[in-house]
């Protein structure tokens, strides 16, 4: 009825295409695991997330048929991913830039609050944690 309804059935994958994408996915999974066997470093997390992102993109495009569908559907996914990224980034940045004693865990240990009867056990340090390293 409206222009939104148009699909692009010509872009559906064949069996070979589905299997090829699947092969790439499995290979990328193996790659993530192999990279993990290398020494851990600052780059580990970004690389692992990058590979996860690539896998997610492949699945969304081919297996979830985004490639065959209207751009508006892709826009929905993109918006949600952007908002997650914004929430995550802003919260982390804000936490890191606080007045230092406001950043958890703070300069001294906290007693369990009234109403909370149980001691948190092993999670609780025995002595004062002291100030965070500058």
């Amino acid at each position, binding site marked *: 009825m409206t222009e*939104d309804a148009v699909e692009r059935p010509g872009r559906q994958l064949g069996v070979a295409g589905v299997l090829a994408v699947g092969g790439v996915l499995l290979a990328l999974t193996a790659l993530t695991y192999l990279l*993990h066997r290398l020494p851990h470093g600052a780059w580990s997390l970004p690389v692992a997330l990058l590979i996860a992102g690539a896998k997610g993109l492949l699945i969304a495009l081919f297996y979830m048929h985004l490639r065959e569908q209207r751009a508006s559907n892709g826009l*929905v*996914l993109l918006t949600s991913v952007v908002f997650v990224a914004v929430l995550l980034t802003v919260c982390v940045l804000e936490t890191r830039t606080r007045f230092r004693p406001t950043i958890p865990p703070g300069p001294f240990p906290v007693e369990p609050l009234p109403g909370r009867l*149980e001691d948190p*056990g*092993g999670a609780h340090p025995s002595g004062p944690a002291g100030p965070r390293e500058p």
Partner: protein
Amino acid sequence: MPPEAVTEHWGSEGARRQAAYLGMWVFIATEVLLFAGLFTAYGVYRSVYPEVFRAAQLTMDVGLGTLNTFLLVTSSVLVALAVHAVRGDKPGLGGALLLSAALLGVVFLAVKGVEYAHHVKEGGLPGDAYRFQAVPRVGASLFFTLYFLLTGIHALHVTVGVGVLTVLGVRSASGTFGAGYATPVELGGMYWHLVDVVWLFVYPILYLA
């Protein structure tokens, strides 16, 4: 009785399909944002307690996690093949593929259960129940709480997904779907892929890096 032109719900088959896809995508967006809060909590606490989180991560069973990742990715491939089969008017094959994907999902849950049993034995439990002596510092209980929340809510989704795939598989095998009516299989497949993609992000942050 009013004329057909004003009583029919959908203007065209195309509009019906697009509404189904769009509705599913919007639903997927809400699912993504449902996990957003947990990922944010993970990001904030990891940036605040980097060493503790690393130490806690090292106690994870990477082998089982990797096994689970392969299970889910393989099941995703099976579901994609199933959608292809149903669209190609081979509902019997599609049904078989969907059911085998569901089976992989069940295996995933079983492996997850084994992992949970390990954590319970070690005391790596969320919040109040935390008793893990190997990583006793402030912040480690947060890691395990987030671990259980992320994997637990994900496992809930897997359970729902297994149910959906089973129903779709049985109905497909009995010939309900076909080239002319593949939308439920496509939507169910999209849901399963979503479950897979969420795991693809949970796996590296909890187990690997």
